[in-house]
């Protein structure tokens, strides 16, 4: 192949020279070049190696249909893998490296693999490496596979901007049809977006260079561009519409420089005109993968856009009328051109590192380039994303748009309208909503499809080395479904996603099975239409912006108090305080609470208000426990169940008045419980008589717990009698403190006397400070969640989701009465009376006392001695500083009947011994909680 830069022509800026390297060689191009056009202009024939056989590969396409020219690119900002050479603009200082080749594409030591190709057919891996074990071979195969690699100097700060937008009309494609349509629609006053993936408008107009509506292509394009913008239309070049999603959402990727992440536009367009054009289909013939064989369209593109003549002696192998005019165009550019009609006989190319000759029967032409076209394939990926149907057109030998998806129409070549004048008329009519009857096309071709049984190696998928023989093999082995064919041979699974290989592959299978191509069908078209970086999707949602945690009003106070913060149920909360190691600090804080007391930020506890005339009946209905007997000023612990009867959440219910309750859900479930309540409120209840407000964010809650909790709380000077008799466990009071509302409840998760004090969040700091100041001289200091976890486990108090699983029901935890006695129905009622709920082997909550001084591993399985069947699991395990031994909770089959039994546990290869006990390890009488 002898690509040559012409002294004139093209859209490039010859005044702007750009120096770059390719595989260690210095080259130069010009402003407006792509990597591929610059390489072709420098006479580069081999740009890469195929995936499987490491065959030498040259540039095939002129744009997104390129399967071969994939590079690693290093810029001053860093390196990027798998850059498509035909769509990437050349920039100064680029160091371009071929991929899947060592030391380079020109000489690749793995090129010898091609000698073994007779034994490496489709399915080779599946058949050969099954025995003795696939995993023995997998590492080696994985090392050999793949294209580019991530380098250590990967571009930093590669973060995509993301923008939401909307418009009346989106025109995809800035070729002649797209420009004409956008102009017509914009003049009508519609908000129009026109997106074009090249950095210049005009589509295929520059290939032949013919005048359009009396103007040179550049002048005609400039006039349309000005008209669109003057009418308020927006034009985004270098922007690819890569996908259509629900509710007419279009994904647009706008590229600026290769080392800058593209911008994602999430565009909602009421209507879309698809003017995405058509691409050349390869002609399938012997050795059709040699460097120097490329699409006819690409050869003309490189000439028209970049002033590059792709060969000196060019053979055109095309089956349609454009071949003659293309030959004339290339001859004018100085090439010696010969024409071959593939329909007149089998073609075969010869050469080793590039095409040297093309033969047809007895005719042979010495060439350095073959431009092939078996017809045009409309680019209809977005059409299919949107749900549009396709129909096979025998005359054009391709799929064309059939039943349109809502809000989308295809125009121009994408609609099979290959005549320019007809495409313009069609585009303008569709844009203005006027009727248009498609005229008879002047574009004719002789269908040229792969012929099974032909001699020689004929490539169907260039990147993945799928040959016609591979399709034949798949058919023989009954992989005739198009989806099976794809997966068995990897046809169309390369990075070009079958843009060049799909129709030849389908046609081959159709010929082999005696079916029509529509009967063979197509595989599913899925976004993205072209590869887009993952950075496009996540945008700036990385680091702290990825799944951000909820933050406490008191976070700064905790930080200044030396808290170690961690995630607990979606909140960033103090795990412990001080500089000590976490386990040591947690033990110390847990001991402190039992000895004196602790102060805990319990703000994430849910505060979900349920109000209205039917609030009482509703709360009684959604809770497992009876709530209608709850009196104002009192609290009650209870479970919310799923309809299956499985525990969804636990918590306490405050009765504020006859028509008002506050549900204090667990900390991580406030939003889930609110959603559940909203759901039931609207299902089977009168939603105008029940209202649910999640007020969790308005309140901050500080819990004072321990023997000295009352003394500390008393320091607030509340007008509430805090004595045990006047203010017993599971009651609450409402009052005012420093002119703000204050709610104080006697409820405990530690087993100690506790006061849970809630104030509006803006007063939280004052409350915390007052309590901390009062507690300090009494030895009552802040405590973190880790200490709380130990304390509640000592008391056998569960954490939903930790000590329960997706099967746990209330009676598994010992809460049996409502199941049999509650007179009114409740959510989960029926689920609690199923066979599964009555299974005598259900897992029940137990305590485990480890034999020895080592705590049991959380997650350890209780196993029987014979087949290691798991009959239980450790859900929580700690060293208790207050009972001075390891404690644990677990769910065990028939656990309550096995108290005292010694069991064996297994975890990560280790075995342990433990005795099943009551879950309550500390203060079994509960004296402290009522003190």
């Amino acid at each position, binding site marked *: 192949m002898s690509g040559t830069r012409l002294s004139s022509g093209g859209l490039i800026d010859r005044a702007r020279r750009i120096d770059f390297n390719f595989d260690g060689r210095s080259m130069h191009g010009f402003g407006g070049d792509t990597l591929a056009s610059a390489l072709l202009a420098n006479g580069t024939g081999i740009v890469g190696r195929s995936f499987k056989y490491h065959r030498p590969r040259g540039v095939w396409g002129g744009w997104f249909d390129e399967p071969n020219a994939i590079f690693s690119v290093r810029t001053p900002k860093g390196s990027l893998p798998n850059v498509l050479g035909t769509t990437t603009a050349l920039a100064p200082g680029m160091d371009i490296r071929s991929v899947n080749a060592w030391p380079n594409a020109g000489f690749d030591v793995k090129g010898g693999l091609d000698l073994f190709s007779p034994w490496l057919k489709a399915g080779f891996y599946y058949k050969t490496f099954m025995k003795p074990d696939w995993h023995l071979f997998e590492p080696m195969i994985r090392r050999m596979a793949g294209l580019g690699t991530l380098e250590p100097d990967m571009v930093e700060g590669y973060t995509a901007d993301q923008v939401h937008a909307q418009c009346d009309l989106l025109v995809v494609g800035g070729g002649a049809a797209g420009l004409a349509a956008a102009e017509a629609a914009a003049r009508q006053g519609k908000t129009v977006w026109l997106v074009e993936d090249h950095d210049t408008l005009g589509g295929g107009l520059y290939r032949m260079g013919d005048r359009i509506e009396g103007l040179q292509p550049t002048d005609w394009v400039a006039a349309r561009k000005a008209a669109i913008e003057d009418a308020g239309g927006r034009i985004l070049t270098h922007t690819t519409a890569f996908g259509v999603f629900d509710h007419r959402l279009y994904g647009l990727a706008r590229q600026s420089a290769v080392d800058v992440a593209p911008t994602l536009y999430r565009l909602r367009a009421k209507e879309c005109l698809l003017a995405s054009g058509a691409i050349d289909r390869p002609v399938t013939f012997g050795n059709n993968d040699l460097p120097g064989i490329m699409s006819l369209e690409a050869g003309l593109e490189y000439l028209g856009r970049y002033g590059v003549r792709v060969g000196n002696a060019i053979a055109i192998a095309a089956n349609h009328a454009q071949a003659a005019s293309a030959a004339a165009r290339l001859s004018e550019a100085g090439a010696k051109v010969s024409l071959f009609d593939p329909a007149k006989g089998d073609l075969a190319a010869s050469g080793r590192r590039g095409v040297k000759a093309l033969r047809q029967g007895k005719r042979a032409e010495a060439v350095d380039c073959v431009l092939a076209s078996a017809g045009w394939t409309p680019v209809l990926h977005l059409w299919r994303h949107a749900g549009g149907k396709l129909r096979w057109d025998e005359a054009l030998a391709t799929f064309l748009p059939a039943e349109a998806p809502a809000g989308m129409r295809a125009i121009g070549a994408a609609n099979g309208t290959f005549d320019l004048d007809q495409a313009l008329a069609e585009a303008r009519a569709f844009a203005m909503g006027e009727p248009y009857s498609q005229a008879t096309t002047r574009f004719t071709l002789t269908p040229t499809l792969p012929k099974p049984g032909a001699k020689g190696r004929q490539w169907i998928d260039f990147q993945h080395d799928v040959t016609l023989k591979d399709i034949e093999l798949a058919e023989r082995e009954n992989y005739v479904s198009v989806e099976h064919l794809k997966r068995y041979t990897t046809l169309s699974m390369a990075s070009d996603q079958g843009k060049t290989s799909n129709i030849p592959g389908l046609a081959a299978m159709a010929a082999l099975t005696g079916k029509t191509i529509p009967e063979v069908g197509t595989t599913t078209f899925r976004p993205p239409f072209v590869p887009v970086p993952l950075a496009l999707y996540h945008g700036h949602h990385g680091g702290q912006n990825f799944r951000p*945690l909820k933050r406490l009003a008191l976070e700064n106070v905790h930080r200044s108090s030396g808290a170690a913060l*961690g995630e607990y149920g979606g909140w960033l909360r103090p795990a412990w305080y001080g500089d000590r190691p976490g386990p040591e600090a947690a033990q110390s804080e847990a001991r402190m609470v039992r000895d004196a007391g602790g102060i805990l930020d319990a703000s994430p506890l849910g505060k979900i208000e349920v*109000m209205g005339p039917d609030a009482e009946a509703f709360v009684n209905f959604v809770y497992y426990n009876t709530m209608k007997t709850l009196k104002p000023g009192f609290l009650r612990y209870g479970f919310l169940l799923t309809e299956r009867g499985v525990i969804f959440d636990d918590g306490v219910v405050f009765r504020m008045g006859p028509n008002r309750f506050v549900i204090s859900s667990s900390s991580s479930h406030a939003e889930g419980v609110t959603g559940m309540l909203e759901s039931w409120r609207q299902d089977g209840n009168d939603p105008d008589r029940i209202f649910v407000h999640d007020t969790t964010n308005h309140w901050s809650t500080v819990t004072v717990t321990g023997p000295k909790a009352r003394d500390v709380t008393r320091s607030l000077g509340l007008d509430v009698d805090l004595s045990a008799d006047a203010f017993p466990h599971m009651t609450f009071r409402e009052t005012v403190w420093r002119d703000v509302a204050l709610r104080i409840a006697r409820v405990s998760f530690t087993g100690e006397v506790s006061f849970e004090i809630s104030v509006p969040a803006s007063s939280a700091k004052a409350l915390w400070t007052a309590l901390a100041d009062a507690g300090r001289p009494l030895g009552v200091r802040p405590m973190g969640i880790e200490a709380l976890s130990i304390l509640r486990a000592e008391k056998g108090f569960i954490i939903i989701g930790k000590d329960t699983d997706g099967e746990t029901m209330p009676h598994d935890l010992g809460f049996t009465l409502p199941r049999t006695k509650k007179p009114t129905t409740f959510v989960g009622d029926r689920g609690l009376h199923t066979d599964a709920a009555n299974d005598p082997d259900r897992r029940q909550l137990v305590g485990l006392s480890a034999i020895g001084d080592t705590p049991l591993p959380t997650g350890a399985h209780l196993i029987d001695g014979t087949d290691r069947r798991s009959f239980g699991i450790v859900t929580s395990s700690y060293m208790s500083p207050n009972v001075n031994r390891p404690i644990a909770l677990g769910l065990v089959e028939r656990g309550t009947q096995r108290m005292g039994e010694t069991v064996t546990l297994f975890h990560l290869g280790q075995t342990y011994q433990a005795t099943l006990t009551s879950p309550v390890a500390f203060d079994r009488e509960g004296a402290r909680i009522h003190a």
Partner: protein
Amino acid sequence: MRDDTHKWDAPFPASSVLTGEVDGKACRVSSANMHRLTLISGSGVQTSSELPLIGWPEIAPDGPFALSLRRDRILEVNGPARTDGWDELKSLAISDMTDGYHAFSVDGPGALGLLHRGADVFAETPSASVARLIFGLPALVYRTGETAFSLVFTRAQAVAAYSALSTALRHCAPVRFKERP
């Protein structure tokens, strides 16, 4: 058991102001002060409120107003003091939420452009509700001027919202469109 303190920035100071350019237009983000927020629900709440009811894209007045959240729910902003609980007379559920939200004021010619980094909100698409997702976070989004917006997040998510706004402002691509005549 892990100390992840260093992974999370400390909450932003209430006085902090973000400034930058979006699509070449100036934009400013600051915390907004709302001295009373009251969440009210009831089947007739949309018609019974005496305050101007603000949906999208109405511009909120300087004085008290009510944000329309859904057919049976509003959020009164700087409205009259009300007693929490069930109002038997008016059949309304009332909750003080003054400390439950944090509001950001986003203003300047580039304000709408910044909103478009995180939300599918357009002046041309009206909505009876100001409830939205912005940067994936639930929020109330309403206009306070021609190029001024208020974004109201739950208090616990204000830090996440601030981080999302500041990151988006930093990564805004320099895109310029020609304005419609």
